[in-house]
């Protein structure tokens, strides 16, 4: 019987609008966007122009520093626009879908699955970026030898999709093939992390080399960084790879069917969604195809991903590469009269300074207001309560701000990513931009180490 790792530290933000266990069918968007900004640290080099015709699985852009890592089109169609931001930074490559043709990468039979073959398929199809690494939480380097590979089989973030439900509605064979293939990248061994009491273990327990771990506890118990920290922590000079379970099924399909078809089941969630439920959609698809009639009118924020780490998108924006969730919440651009002084029955808070803490089960409709102004670090001992790692978050943040490389190393910069400290940012009474500080620290480390 596998051991369950029980985490006590952490916090579940009780939001309204969790997706009901209902498949609403397939969303069929016309427009698809592939966003280089989904991949921190990537310097994209375009391979297409506006007007280029592409097949599903054809290259759109590649990594300037690691040219073997390519990013491909999820569908067959034409590049209609390349959106750029400040300093001509590429924000998204937009493809208009036409027909269903795809590049044939060739089917791989089970016994043909080898390390070489898997790497080749991943790199050629543009699926390699599903594998990311710690340290740094960036796309893995194909030339590294990881000390272990983790597959994250659940999500604990606010309003996250239920992976057991997703699996019930998926082709399990794709998942099994994908897991088996990934194990080849780490000497035939692979770690699958599931939520405590998940039934998914029975689908996969007989895959050779698989080791299933169970985690329980509040968010961030589902973050790969937390799993790696507790099972096989990253020390200086070591690399651990990880991937999401749904992304692994795309690899399985690639090997079984020979095509790149990044289909996922995505939860549409949030207090402003009329009918929160699940949709089948290709990665990068425009969310307009399924949010259009299902969202309450008003000034809303659309997020690809969850409220803590997701990316702000337009109401017709595109699903992020790693996201299995779209969240819609109200914007909070209003003034509140003496807002800090009210008893706060309806004000959800990690702190116990509002009366809402007397109602431990209520769910809340929370908006994007900052609820205060930015200040220096004052209150202590809060961040530690939501980070289930042997790491001192405030001291690490201060080391990053001071750009003290050695101290950052000592305090565990190799083990964290911005998503692990997202809850610290949420609850920070001084409203400090913690996630961007962490990314700044990671960027600094990458620069220093190269």
């Amino acid at each position, binding site marked *: 019987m596998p051991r369950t790792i029980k985490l006590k530290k952490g916090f579940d933000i009780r939001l309204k609008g969790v997706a009901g266990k209902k498949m609403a069918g397939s969303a069929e968007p016309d427009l698809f966007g592939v966003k280089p900004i989904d991949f921190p640290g990537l310097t994209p080099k375009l391979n297409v122009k506006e007007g280029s015709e592409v097949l599903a699985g054809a290259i759109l852009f590649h990594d300037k520093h690691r040219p073997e890592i390519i990013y491909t089109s999820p569908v067959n169609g034409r590049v209609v626009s390349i959106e750029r931001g400040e300093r001509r930074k590429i924000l998204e490559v937009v493809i208009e879908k036409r027909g269903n043709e795809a590049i044939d990468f060739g089917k791989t039979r089970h016994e043909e699955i080898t390390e070489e073959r898997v790497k080749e398929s991943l790199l050629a199809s543009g699926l390699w970026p599903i594998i990311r690494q710690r340290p740094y939480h960036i796309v893995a380097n194909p030339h590294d030898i990881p000390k272990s590979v983790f597959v994250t089989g659940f999500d604990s973030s606010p309003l996250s999709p239920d992976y057991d439900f997703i699996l019930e509605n998926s082709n399990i064979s794709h998942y099994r093939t994908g897991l088996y293939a990934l194990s080849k990248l780490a000497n035939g061994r692979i770690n699958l992390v599931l939520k405590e009491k998940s039934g998914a273990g029975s689908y996969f327990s007989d895959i050779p080399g698989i080791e299933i771990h169970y985690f329980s506890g509040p968010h961030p118990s589902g973050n790969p960084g937390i799993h790696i920290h507790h099972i096989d922590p990253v020390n200086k000079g070591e690399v651990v790879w990880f991937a999401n379970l749904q992304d692994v099924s795309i690899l399985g399909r690639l090997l079984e069917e020979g095509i790149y078809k990044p289909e996922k089941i995505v939860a549409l969630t949030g207090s402003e969604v009329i009918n929160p439920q699940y949709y089948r959609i290709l990665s990068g698809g425009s969310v307009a195809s399924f949010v259009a009639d299902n969202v309450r009118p008003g000034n809303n924020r659309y997020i690809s991903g969850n409220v803590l780490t997701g990316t702000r998108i337009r109401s017709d924006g595109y699903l992020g590469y790693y996201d299995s969730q779209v969240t819609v919440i109200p914007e909070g651009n209003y003034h509140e009269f003496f807002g800090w002084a009210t008893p706060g029955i309806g004000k959800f808070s990690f702190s116990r300074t509002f009366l809402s803490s007397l109602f431990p089960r209520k769910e809340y409709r929370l908006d*994007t207001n900052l609820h205060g102004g930015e200040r220096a670090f004052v209150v202590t001992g809060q961040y530690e309560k939501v980070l289930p790692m042997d790491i001192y978050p405030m001291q690490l943040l201060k080391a990053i701000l001071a750009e003290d490389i050695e101290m950052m190393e000592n305090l565990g910069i190799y083990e964290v990513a911005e998503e692990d400290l997202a809850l610290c940012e949420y609850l920070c009474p001084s409203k400090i931009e913690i996630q961007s500080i962490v990314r700044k620290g990671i960027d600094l480390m990458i620069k220093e180490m190269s």
Partner: protein
Amino acid sequence: MNSLRKTLDKLKPHFSKGGRFSKLQSVFDGMESFMFVPDKVTFSGSHIRDYTDLKRTMTIVIIALLPALLFGSYNTGLQHFRSVGIESGIFQSFGYGFLRILPLIIVSYLVGLGIEFIAAQIRGHEINEGYLVTGLLIPLIMPIDVPLWMLALAVAFAVILGKEVFGGTGMNTFNPALLARAFVFFSYPGWMTGDTVWTAGLTAGKNIADGFSGATPLSLCVTGEISRLPSFMEMFVGTIPGSFGETSVIAILIGAAVLIATGVGSWKIMAGVFGGGLAMGLLLNAISANEYMHLPFYYQFVMGGFAFGAVFMATDPVTAAQTEKGKWIYGFLIGVLSILIRVLNPAYPEGVMLAILLMNVFAPLIDYFVIQSSINRRLKRVKVEIKTSVK
């Protein structure tokens, strides 16, 4: 409310960059965000943020201070009327005490906030809420008869040299409120020591009733008049001479309950201070070399500023240890030092203020050792792995 909002929106351009009163931008922003939570929304990172902010946190501390403030008002009146030999009712006492403390509070806020506003404007920052608490703490730990100019000077010293030169709230090494008290203590010792300063009107020395000395329990202990100590219960309730807010342990414990229930004050520090006081008290009891050492240890908790310091001063998050293990050590050492200074150093009848200020200096060192142990655990992990892989 709406019309107020409209007025503010109309005024705002004048106080913004390029406006006529742009030099007062920080003041305007401070006032505006005091009345209205800003309409700013999240831009990067987490899309939702907790409702709590520093204003909320500071408000909770002020609420926690209210019992001590209210009882202090009553007790100040009570002590005054006792000193002149007049029987007084609760409301009469309270009214007298409240009117005595009010000018101190007003001066403390005017001077302190004034300096904060100027400092924020010079830096171009928003005004920080830290002084909201400090401004109330300072009058509560002063002798009631302290002249207002002296208070103003102490506040200015504490805020400018104790806080702003380090970069404002969050950057200071010393607890600003205690720094203000230390300033008066060392610069004007006549106003902070002796028997007459703790009771309103006693320094003027008019119409004093026979037998009333105004001596605090601690000075009785130091002068060897332990037999004249008030009863434990009297000291616990707080109807004794002393600084305005420190006398009633009951009122302070209510405040502690508020701080602990809301999580705003660290219970670990409070428990640490009392634990340290207990350990040192028991040790002195065991030695029992003189009458003061013989005094049961629990008397130490109800005399002087021990409880007030433990609950409201040691728990200041900026100047305390910042790691959870560090908080235990920090609190414990404050407790030990407080009692040590009190009992073994006759020059300072009260040891709490000096103990906390001293530990303020050592808090970063405590954190350093706690964090170093985490670093060592991380380094050890690597060594263990290298060893096992060699085998």
